[in-house]
C-alpha cells in the first residue's frame, strides 16, 4: 500500500503549467514596475533644488540678522561710553571749580588781613 500510495501521490501531484502567457505577464510586470520605480525616484528628488535654495536664503538671512545685531550692540556700547565720559567730564569740571573757588577765597583772606 505504501508504494502504491507514493506512486499515486506522485501522479496526483505532477506539476501543471500556468499557461503560455505566464512568462510574458511576468516580464511585462517587471517592465511596468521599473518604469514606476524610475518615476518615483525622480519625484522623490524633485524637492531638492527648492530645499537647497531655501537653505541658502535662510543662511543669508541668519547671517545678515547676526551682523545687524552685532552692529547695534556696538553702537549702544559706544553711546554708553560717551555718556560715561561726559558724566566724568562734568564731575571733573565741578571739582576744578570747587578747588579754584577755595583757592581764591584763601588768597583773599591772606591779603585782606
Amino acid at each position: 500500500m505504501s508504494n502504491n500510495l507514493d506512486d499515486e501521490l506522485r501522479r496526483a501531484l505532477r506539476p501543471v503549467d500556468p499557461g503560455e502567457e505566464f512568462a510574458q505577464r511576468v516580464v511585462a510586470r517587471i517592465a511596468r514596475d521599473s518604469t514606476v520605480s524610475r518615476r518615483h525616484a525622480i519625484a522623490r528628488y524633485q524637492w531638492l533644488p527648492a530645499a537647497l535654495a531655501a537653505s541658502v536664503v535662510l543662511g543669508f538671512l541668519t547671517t545678515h540678522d547676526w551682523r545687524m545685531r552685532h552692529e547695534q550692540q556696538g553702537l549702544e556700547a559706544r553711546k554708553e561710553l560717551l555718556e560715561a565720559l561726559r558724566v566724568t567730564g562734568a564731575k571733573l569740571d565741578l571739582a576744578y571749580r570747587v578747588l579754584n573757588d577755595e583757592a581764591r577765597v584763601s588768597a583773599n583772606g591772606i591779603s585782606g588781613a
Partner: protein
Amino acid sequence: MTEAEECAPDDSLSRAIAGESAGFAMLVRSHQRSVYSLALRMLSDRHKAQDLAQEVFLQLHRSLAVIESHAHLSFWLRKVTVNRAIDRLRREPKYETVRLEENLNLVSDARERDPLLQRRLRELVGRLPPAPRGVMLLRFQEDLDPLEIARILDMPPNTVKSHLKRSLAILREQVTAFMGPDGTPSEPGPSFTKRDQ
C-alpha cells in the same frame, strides 16, 4: 523550441543576470510549472497561485545577483514559493467553507489512471496544515529527499520525517475510507468546512 536550442547549453541564467529580458523570460519558462504547481497546491486557489508565482519571479528578478548556479536557482525558487505560501496560509482565517471542485486544478491528465482517486489525494493534501503540506509537496511533487526539504524549510530533518510519516498515515486512512469496502472510489461531497489548521 528547436532541437538545437534544446541541446544548446542553458545560458539563460547568465543572460538574465546580465540584464537580458529574453534570458529572464527563458528562466521563467523553465521553472514556471514547478513554482506555479507548488503555489497552487499550497493555496488551493488558481488566482492566488498565479499571483504568488508572479511575485516569486519578481522577487527573483530583484535577487538575481545572489543566484550562483541553476541548482541554487531551483533551491531558491522552491524555498521562496513554499515559505511565502505558508506565511499566507497562516494569515488566512482558520475556518472557511471551500468548494474544492471549483478551486483546485482539475486539469485531467491522460496519464491519470484513476482521476477520482488522484483528485481526492490532491484534496486531502490541500487539507493538511501548512507546514506538513509543504513537506508533502516538496517530497512528492518535487521529488526531494528529507534532507533537501529540511534545508528549504529551515526545519530539522527529523521534523520533516515526522511530518511525512504522519501525513502519509492520515492520507492512507482517508483514502481507504474513500475507496470503500469494495475498493471503488466514491465521489467527494460538494463542499465541506476546512478544519482548523
